[in-house]
């Protein structure tokens, strides 16, 4: 109802010309996100060039590109859910544990027996359902229990992994259903199924974030929850929805991991939350919420996966790779802050109304209603 009144609500600038009045001439698909993520694209291109120079054909082959995409798929799917949560002003530290729990639940002997009698899609359904329910618990505790997101998801991280270990008796559970494995290791049109899944989730996430009211509400809630509530958005219900979404992506990631490794295990997804958060952050999403892009997240995931691939192709140690990862995260965030500061200067020189989350420093109260 009040979605379109721009003045009292702090509508943060959405990436693709959803508020074309503020960006000058650039409308259309590519100008917005690519322009904003130009630094990321440049970094990714540089990384690819380094890969080609050092490893030549082994890097630039279709096989290798597909391997990189396949490896990026699991982190990618989780990162997309994480993007939503972070834009909405929260954080989800439990994603790795939820992936483990979902993969365990879907591969227990009883679930596999049921799937053998009906169809392997039951295992997929079980994983997604477990992820969704755990996300629901997260969301309810955070939105209605008023617990800080960090603490609530931290607790879920510990609890979920413990539950996974109990159910699995700490054993690795092997997927017996050959149809399941065959489906997910296939390559329709030459592209692995897992990559298709990643692409579908990314596109769906982009549409959800940029073309639906759900997405706009997410930006509003993340930018200024109080103003959003005053504008009529049901903040608590929306927050729960965000965490359920994150849980669903965890369930999907669990299915992909089960397909890749042919097992469900309580050790799956260890430290996945850190990888996801890192990818989301270098993708341009602010940790305080209110701003972010799916394209940036996807680029972030690709950068890290390509980095690990280039390092292995050159037989470099994994410790050096970890250091490089840390340097990249810091460099990317620093660059974004400077670009955002530069843009803010340019914009204020054009005397346009300040938007809420434009590079807002952490802790500053965003969204001063325009007069």
């Amino acid at each position, binding site marked *: 109802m009040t979605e379109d009144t721009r003045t009292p609500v702090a509508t943060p600038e959405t990436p693709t010309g959803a508020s074309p009045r503020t960006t000058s001439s650039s409308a259309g698909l590519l100008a917005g996100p690519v322009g904003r993520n130009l630094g990321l694209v440049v970094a990714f291109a540089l990384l690819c060039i380094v890969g080609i120079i050092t*490893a030549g054909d*082994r890097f630039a*082959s279709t*096989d*290798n590109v597909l*391997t990189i995409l*396949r*490896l990026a798929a699991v982190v990618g799917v989780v990162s997309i859910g994480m993007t939503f949560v972070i834009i909405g002003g929260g954080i989800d530290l439990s994603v790795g544990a939820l992936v483990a729990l979902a993969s365990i*639940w879907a591969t*227990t*002997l*009883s*679930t596999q027996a049921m799937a053998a009698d009906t169809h392997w899609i039951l295992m997929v359904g079980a994983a997604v359902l477990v992820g969704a*329910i755990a996300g*629901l*618990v997260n969301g*309810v505790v955070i939105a*209605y229990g008023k617990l800080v997101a960090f603490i609530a998801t931290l607790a879920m991280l510990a609890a979920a992994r413990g*539950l996974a*270990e109990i*159910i*699995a*008796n*700490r*054993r*690795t*559970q*092997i997927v017996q259903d050959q149809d399941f494995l065959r489906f997910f*290791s296939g390559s329709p049109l030459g592209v692995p199924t897992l990559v298709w899944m990643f692409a579908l989730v990314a596109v769906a996430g982009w549409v959800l974030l940029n073309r639906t009211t759900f997405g706009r509400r997410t930006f509003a809630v993340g930018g200024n929850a109080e103003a959003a509530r005053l504008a009529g958005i049901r903040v608590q219900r929306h927050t729960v929805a965000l965490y359920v979404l994150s849980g669903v992506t965890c369930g999907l990631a669990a299915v992909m*991991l089960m397909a*890749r*490794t*042919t*097992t469900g*295990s*309580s*050790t*799956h*997804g*260890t430290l996945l939350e850190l990888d996801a958060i890192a990818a989301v952050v270098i993708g341009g999403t602010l940790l305080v919420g209110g701003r972010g892009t799916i394209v940036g997240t996807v680029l972030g995931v690709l950068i890290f996966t390509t980095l*690990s*691939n280039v390092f*292995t*192709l*050159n*037989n470099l*140690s*994994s*410790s050096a790779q970890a250091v490089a990862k840390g340097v990249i995260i810091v460099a990317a965030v620093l660059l974004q802050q400077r670009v955002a500061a530069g843009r803010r200067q340019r914009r204020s020189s054009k005397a346009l109304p300040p938007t809420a989350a434009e590079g807002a420093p952490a802790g500053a109260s965003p969204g001063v209603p325009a007069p």
Partner: protein
Amino acid sequence: MSARHRRLLTSTVALLGAGVMVTGCTGNTPEATGSGGGGNNAASSNDDTGDTVTIGFSAPAADHGWMAQITAAARAEADGYEDVDLVVAEGTNDVSAQIAQVETFINDGVDAIVLLPFDGAALTPIALEAMQAGIPVINVDREFDDPDAARVTILGDNYGMGVSAGAYVCSQLGDQPDAVVAEVAGIDSLPLTQERSQGFSDALADCGLDVDNRVAAEFTVESGEEVTANLLQAAPQIDALWNHDDDQGIGVLAAITNAGRDEFFMVGGAGSANAMRSIEAGDSVLQATVIYPASQAADGVRLARLIAQGKALSDLIDVEVPRQITLSAPVVTADNVDQYIDSAFES
């Protein structure tokens, strides 16, 4: 609180309750765990029932099939003796928690302690304390820093494991000086991984080969799959691959199958039942595996009983139990897999 809030709270509680109940709906029927340690040991007069001894047992958390088998084998061994009362402490990877467990054993005045420390150096002081209190300590697998901290040390042979793997690779490829050998290691920061790698490269050097591509996983299935996928891209042609650990080997094999590569043969490590079944079936690149015995703790329990009852190792002339025993690392191939498959651990 409004009616709607109450409704929501109730529904959440109901949901959680349902979740707990649903947990009961899924589950694993108890698997037939491998018999803890082969029972084909010759009976000796040492097995005659003596005084009842209380043995305290502490090992890390069983989050790896090998570690789970360690504890299971130790329990099974103790059950086989009427005169052994085994007190098993909760498996934990937390060093301070394990120290506390040993302290409890000392306070309870057990007759012997069998200890697989999560970290040998960190548990050395408390082991010394136990020895000084007159309680013999059997150190299993991960060695203490101080020789006085244990009465008997029983170890697997990490370096020897690498040597066995390297020797096997040499036996298959020794006549090809430019063969490409790859290695998938475990957690690189652990000394045992470094020892295994060292043994491997030393044995390869003997026949003029060396490790051309090396990646490190983390003993988990997921990391095994990830690093191997990248490794296969790095090396378009491989002749032999050694994977340190059969649990992460499930992921390694998945990556190999996904990439459709089969021009090389693979050697595993640790000796899981999965790997042995694979070797027996002969349907994958896995041709052999090197055993890292999961029976060490069971041996430790036997030795603890002997020491507490004042006996000696029966087949040795010496009247005292030896200070250190290092188990061998045999290579299991399709030819001898039936000897070892019964005592292998499930992943």
